[in-house]
């Protein structure tokens, strides 16, 4: 389908509109050229028009990387579908490139396929610098040889009619082009542009609207074939936000009063949204001097009866470990959000990984049982904060919410949450405390106890991180230590008894069960769906509770011939002889093998990008074929 006519002077033709099930669009530029703004508006407009949408940011690690450089790629991937979408998909269908160099960063990430349409700024062919002209022309040949359909687009030339600096306008021009290409609601997009630029004054707003029209009419004159992605049917009101915004809204909906943090990518933006809005609900963001102080402050607030959250990522989590142990030992309610990034050490600050699971579970010295939740969608990022806050109070200890860089920047519509006062933390209890009730009046079955809050008469006790008895008196005696550690462990068992087994996606028996956690859910379920359509007996399950694990896993796993995990963390490759006999498993696999005694297989990678369902289809197919070979 060669629908692109190159000469700008081509006659306006009768529209040929093709209906699509879904498309993936990428807008890629140097950072600072506004590709992200364009991507966000396009994604939001599509969501408003009723499409399923998943948007992810393409983020360079530096604030201002050199222009026209491969690592400088900045922008957005927007997947738009006729049904709900839960991941960023496979290869891009359409790419808008502001220069050819940034495209190579995406090619490295395996983001394009043969036949991907690339709309490329063509001003570089006339650049005064010879080397720029040369690299552009070489790249053009190379891109075409790779099988991409490249169209030169005079973005800058068109923009210069309205603005002096085209770097500050191309993004909105491109939005016009996309509006036409995908038959988006033009009035709606104009409205969104207006909302975005209103505050900058009439002049700026008008020139942006002109740029939008210009991009639109260029596309109308030059692109004869356009696409339409029909809306899905869901009449409930929806909101659109990214995972970090959802976490921030969740904090507020849970009634948090203090968010105590130290800036760290990719977690920081949660506190940005909170800092901008927390005041409206009477909350406060404390930017501490370091992560240790951040969690200490939150623990102090919580000890004093106020609900607090601390938000971090890998390196910050490492610093918080000692205080996490204290929160377990002294039973201080606290929600800890870890928006995971690539590790170890400073690792890949802006990239996705699921490598903190074992550190969260076992990172504290001593036995430190804690509750760990992992949201798998943007919607769950919101709701899990409320659950986490409740669990922290009820089970009197730290509760982790393990998100990741993929959820953090992924944008997705979901049904508008209903807010209510009973989701908020209750006002602090200052009634008299019965002095006969010890501050750790552990229930012998569940290990649960209620805690006195400073201000409660009769409840005074000294919280300590030392071994202590039910009166919080320091005791080193061995019997007491055995018993009190068991009390804290009983809480997890008690919680587990209240949980339901997780829901299987697909049939509850079959050849292969794929187990995942967190943000890989969308890609896993999509891969499983495709394989089931091919007749494969495959199902999947996503674990939302990682500690305690939901009940019934062993029985569930036994109903499949084989069980394997899919994760974004490191494990040794199956066939590499270097690891023969010493293959290190992926993290969830390690946990599940220990807990179920089932020989659980695994496939995990650390590409620094979300897993593509297409790749998973190949991997899973391969594993299933191996199984067949083995049983024959």
């Amino acid at each position, binding site marked *: 389908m060669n629908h692109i006519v190159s000469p700008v002077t081509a006659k306006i033709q009768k529209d040929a509109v093709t209906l699509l099930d879904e498309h993936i669009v990428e807008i890629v530029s140097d950072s600072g050229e506004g590709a992200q703004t364009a991507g966000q508006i396009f994604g939001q407009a599509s*969501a408003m028009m009723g499409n399923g949408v998943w948007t992810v940011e393409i983020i360079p690690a530096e604030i201002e990387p050199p222009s026209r450089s491969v690592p400088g790629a900045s922008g957005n991937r927007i997947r738009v579908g006729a049904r709900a979408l839960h991941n960023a998909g496979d290869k891009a269908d359409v790419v808008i490139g502001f220069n050819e160099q940034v495209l190579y960063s995406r090619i490295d990430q395996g983001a394009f396929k043969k036949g991907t349409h690339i709309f490329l700024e063509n001003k570089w062919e006339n650049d005064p610098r010879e080397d720029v002209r040369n690299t552009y022309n070489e790249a053009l040949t190379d891109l075409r040889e790779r099988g991409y359909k490249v169209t030169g687009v005079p973005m800058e030339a068109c923009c210069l009619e309205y603005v002096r600096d085209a770097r500050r306008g191309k993004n909105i021009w491109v939005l016009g082009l996309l509006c036409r290409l995908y038959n988006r609601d033009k009035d709606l997009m104009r409205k969104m542009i207006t909302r975005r630029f209103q505050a900058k004054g009439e002049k700026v707003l008008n020139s942006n609207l002109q740029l939008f029209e210009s991009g639109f009419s260029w596309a109308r004159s030059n692109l004869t074939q356009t696409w339409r992605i029909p809306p899905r049917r869901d009449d409930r*009101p929806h909101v*659109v*936000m990214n995972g970090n*915004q959802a976490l921030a*809204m969740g904090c*507020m*909906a849970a*009634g948090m009063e*203090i968010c105590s943090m130290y800036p760290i990518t990719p977690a920081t933006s949660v506190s940005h949204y909170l800092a901008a*809005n927390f005041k*409206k*609900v*009477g*909350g*406060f963001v*404390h930017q*501490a*001097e*370091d992560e*240790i*102080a*951040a969690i*200490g*402050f939150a*623990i*102090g*607030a919580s*000890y*004093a*009866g*106020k609900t*607090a959250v601390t938000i971090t990522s890998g390196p910050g989590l490492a610093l918080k470990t*000692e205080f996490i142990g*204290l929160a377990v030992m002294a039973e201080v309610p606290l929600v800890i959000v870890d928006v995971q990034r690539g590790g170890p050490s400073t690792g890949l600050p802006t990239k996705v990984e699921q490598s903190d699971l074992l550190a969260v579970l076992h990172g504290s010295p001593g036995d430190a049982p804690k509750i760990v939740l992992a949201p798998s969608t943007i919607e769950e990022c919101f709701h899990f904060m409320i659950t986490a806050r409740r669990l922290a109070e009820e089970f009197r200890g730290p509760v982790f919410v393990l998100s990741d860089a993929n959820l953090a920047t992924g944008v997705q*519509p979901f049904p*508008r949450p209903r807010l*209510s*006062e009973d989701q*908020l933390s*209750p*006002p*602090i*209890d*200052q*009634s*008299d405390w*019965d002095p006969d009730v010890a501050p750790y009046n552990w229930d012998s079955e569940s290990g649960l106890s209620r805690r006195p809050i*400073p*201000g409660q*008469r*009769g*409840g*005074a006790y*000294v*919280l*300590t*991180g*030392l071994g202590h008895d039910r009166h919080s008196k*320091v005791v080193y005696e061995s019997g007491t230590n055995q018993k009190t550690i068991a009390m804290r462990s009983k809480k997890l068992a008690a919680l587990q008894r209240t949980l339901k087994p997780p829901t299987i996606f697909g049939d509850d028996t079959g050849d292969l069960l794929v187990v995942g956690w967190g943000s890989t859910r969308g890609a896993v379920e999509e891969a499983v769906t495709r394989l089931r359509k091919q007749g494969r007996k495959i199902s999947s399950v996503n674990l939302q509770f990682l500690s305690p694990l939901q009940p019934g896993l062993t029985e569930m796993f036994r109903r499949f011939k084989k069980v394997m995990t899919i994760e974004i963390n490191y494990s040794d490759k199956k066939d590499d002889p270097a690891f023969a006999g010493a293959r290190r498993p992926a993290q969830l696999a390690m946990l599940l093998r220990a807990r179920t005694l089932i020989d659980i297989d695994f496939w995990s990678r650390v590409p620094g990008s979300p897993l593509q369902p297409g790749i998973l289809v190949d991997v899973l197919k391969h594993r299933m074929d191996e199984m067949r070979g083995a049983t024959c």
Partner: protein
Amino acid sequence: MLGLKTDWVLEPEPRDYALADYEGCQAKWCPGCGDHSVLNAVQRLCRDERLPPEQTVFVSGIGCSSRFPHYMKTYGFHGLHGRALPVASGIRARRPDLNIFVATGDGDCCSIGTAHWIHALRYNMKMVVMMFDNNIYGLTKKQTSPTTRRGRRTNTHPDGAFLSPMNPITVSLGVPNASFIAQTVDWNPPHLYATLREAFHHPGFAFVRVMQRCPHFTGDNFELFQTDPSKILLMTHPDGVPVDDALIRTFTTRVEHDPADRMNAFNHAMREDVLPIGLFYRDEEAEHYDSYTREGLDTTPAEKVEAMDKLLDLYCV
């Protein structure tokens, strides 16, 4: 026990308390340890100020001195080595109603907790911080601390500490927005009490370095100052630590020091021939971080839900 919120119950009269109302477990410090006399002074202060035990919190780190909360019959938080101040700040953040005291050692405060100490001085949230300075790591048995004098033999530096000690007073004086910096000695109960009382009435972060005897490990440390009181420089001023004439007369070396004068405070603090005690610096106008952290405390649940509904509307499609 109905979980009733009784914030609004007014006490018609402040209650009267006896010392016993503040006495927790039997203190297990060594005989002759200076910590005992600070404990006595603090219990007296609580009684005299009629502090309701349930409204009073003692926060500490780890060390001999950090056992302090266990010996009080109030709320207490005996946390992590070096981390008392972040915890105390978090408690203060949303609880303007509580009386907060911090007990910390020279290792706890000036070594592992240094970052928090500097920043807590700058946050200037209302609390009394007692830094027990015995010039040694007591609990872990005689290792060099940041305030150990050069040449003193310790278990980590058996040939003598290499470097000259850090001066917690000049460090504190150098922190912008620090608002109350005083020094006293455990073996002079009236001066100790008067200093702590002044600290308690300060509206912000009151840092008191208490020179504390550790007979077990550094018995000779403050001997000179005890045997020859002329080696102590008493700083006096109408705005300083109030001391009566009888007490003043026991000090032969005195200087009039205006605690508003920060530069002169440095001069006194840096003297090595004498040990200055009294108030180095006070600024009641300094900004209080807690005035920000407690904003919005009175937001009602209905207001919260209404505000969040409006926020969610912004994300609606």
